[in-house]
C-alpha cells in the first residue's frame, strides 16, 4: 500500500525511447497501457499536475529528463562567464550583488537536479555527463565575457530571457517538481535582471567610454540572447510534443517575441541601440519585428564550436577536481561523527 520516497528508477514499461506514434501502437497491444495513456492525457487536458509517483509515458519522462538536466547544467555552467568578473567588480556594491547572483545560479542548478532525481535519474550520472561533455547546456554560456559591461548585459538579457522562459514553466508546466522549482527560481531571478539593468543604465549614463562599453556589450549579446529560446518553431523537433504534454505552454518563437517586446523599450530608455537594422514596430500586432537570426551560428555553438565551449568544460572539470578533497573530507568527518555516536573506539 505504501512505499518509501527513495528514488527508484521508473519501471521501464516501454523500454526504448519510442516516438509518440510508436508508443501508441505498442500500447494498443496492451489494453492497460492504452487506458493509462488515455487517463494521463486526460489529466494533462484538465491542467492537472503530474507528480513523481504518478504513471507517465516513458517518452514524457525522457523528455523531462532531457529538458530538466540541460536546464540544470545551464545554471551550473552559467556561473562561469560571470564568475570571471567577481574579483574585478568595480565596487563593493557590484561585487556583493554578483557574488549573490552567481551563488543563486548554483542553487538553481541544485533545485533542478533535485527535480530531475524525482524521475529516477541518478544525479551522479547527470554530473558525469556534464563533466565529460556528453550533456548539452544553453549555448549562450559559450560566449566570452570580455568587459565589465558584459556582466550587466548578461543580467539584463540572459536572465531576462530566462525569466520569460521560466515564468511560463512556473505557471503552466505539467510536471509538479519542475514547476515548483521554477517558482523558486523566478522569485530569485528578478533580482538578477534588475541588478544587470541598473549596472548598464549606470554605464549608459556615464562617460562616452563607459557608454561605448555598454553599447559594445549589447551588440555582442543581443543575437545570442535571442537564440536562447531555441530554434524557430518550424525547426524545433521537440516543441510539438512538449506542448502536447503540457511541459511547455508557448512555442520558442512566441517566447522570443515576448522577450523582444519587453526589451526594446528598456534599451530605448537608457539610450542604447539594439544591433538590428530591421527592428521595427508592427502597429497591427504591437510586436517588435526582428531581422533574420543567424541559425548557422546557433547550431555551430550547440555542436561544440562556440568561442568558449572547451574553456567552460575545462573550468567546470577543474572546479570539480579541486573540490574532491572537500567531498572526501566531508565523508570522513561524517564517518568519524557516526563512529563516535556509536561509542566505537576513536580512530587514531
Amino acid at each position, binding site marked *: 500500500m505504501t512505499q*518509501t520516497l527513495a528514488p527508484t528508477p521508473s519501471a521501464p514499461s516501454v523500454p526504448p525511447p519510442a516516438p509518440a506514434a510508436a508508443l501508441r501502437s505498442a500500447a494498443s497491444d496492451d489494453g492497460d497501457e492504452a487506458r493509462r495513456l488515455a487517463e494521463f492525457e486526460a489529466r494533462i487536458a484538465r491542467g492537472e499536475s503530474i507528480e513523481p509517483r504518478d504513471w507517465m509515458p516513458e517518452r514524457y519522462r525522457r523528455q523531462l529528463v532531457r529538458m530538466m538536466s540541460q536546464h540544470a547544467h545551464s545554471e551550473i555552467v552559467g556561473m562561469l562567464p560571470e*564568475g570571471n568578473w567577481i574579483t574585478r567588480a568595480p565596487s563593493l556594491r557590484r561585487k556583493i550583488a554578483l557574488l549573490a547572483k552567481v551563488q543563486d545560479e548554483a542553487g538553481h542548478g541544485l533545485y533542478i537536479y533535485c527535480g530531475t532525481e524525482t524521475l529516477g535519474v541518478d544525479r551522479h550520472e547527470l554530473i558525469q555527463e556534464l563533466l565529460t561533455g556528453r550533456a548539452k547546456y544553453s549555448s549562450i554560456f559559450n560566449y566570452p565575457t570580455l568587459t565589465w559591461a558584459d556582466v550587466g548585459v548578461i543580467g539584463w538579457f540572459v536572465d531576462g530571457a530566462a525569466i520569460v522562459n521560466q515564468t511560463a514553466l512556473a505557471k503552466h508546466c505539467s510536471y509538479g517538481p519542475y514547476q515548483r522549482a521554477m517558482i523558486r527560481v523566478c522569485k*530569485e531571478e528578478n533580482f538578477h535582471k534588475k541588478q544587470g539593468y541598473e549596472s548598464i543604465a549606470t554605464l549608459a549614463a556615464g562617460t562616452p567610454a563607459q557608454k561605448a562599453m555598454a553599447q559594445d556589450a549589447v551588440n555582442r549579446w543581443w543575437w545570442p540572447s535571442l537564440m536562447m529560446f531555441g530554434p524557430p518553431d518550424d525547426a524545433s523537433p521537440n516543441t510539438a510534443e512538449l506542448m502536447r504534454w503540457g511541459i511547455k505552454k508557448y512555442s520558442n518563437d512566441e517566447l522570443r517575441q515576448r522577450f523582444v517586446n519587453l526589451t526594446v523599450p528598456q534599451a530605448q530608455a537608457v539610450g542604447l541601440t539594439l544591433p538590428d537594422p530591421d527592428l521595427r514596430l508592427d502597429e497591427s500586432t504591437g510586436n517588435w519585428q526582428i531581422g533574420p537570426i543567424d541559425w548557422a551560428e546557433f547550431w555551430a555553438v550547440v555542436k561544440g564550436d562556440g568561442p568558449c565551449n572547451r574553456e567552460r568544460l575545462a573550468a567546470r572539470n577543474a572546479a570539480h577536481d579541486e573540490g*574532491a578533497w572537500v*567531498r572526501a573530507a566531508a565523508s570522513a*568527518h561524517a564517518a568519524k561523527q557516526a563512529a563516535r555516536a556509536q561509542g566505537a573506539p576513536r580512530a587514531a
Partner: protein
Amino acid sequence: MYGTILTVGDADAQHDPAGRAASPASPEEPTPVEVADGQWALWEVFTQEAQGAPHEHAGSVRATDAEHALQNARDVYGRRGRVLSMWVVPTGAIRATTPDESAPFFEPGDDKPYRHPHFYKVPRGVRGL
C-alpha cells in the same frame, strides 16, 4: 566562487581513492547514512517560512549525514533569510501512499458528509452556529 558547487551531492567517493572514508573503515565503524551509486544519501528538506506556519517540502539535498544535510539545505533553500526553521529527513525514511492505491486508501473519508457542518439543518433565523 566554487564554494557552493562543492556541496553538490555528487561526491564520487566510491570512485575516488581519496574518498574511501565514505565506506566503513572497519565492520565496527558504521556508515553514517547509506551511500549508494557513488554519491551521498538523499535527504528531503522541509522549511517553515513564517511564524506559526507549517513546515513545507522545499526539495532535496545530498549529504553525508544529518548535520551536513542541514548545512547544504540552508545554502540551497535558505539564501534569502525567509526560513525560520528547517527539517531534513532521509528520503528513504518517508513512507508515502501510491497513486494507484490512494483512492481506496482515502475512500473511507469520502462518504461521510455528516462530518461537515453543512450536513446539519438549523431553524431559519438562528445565528451563531
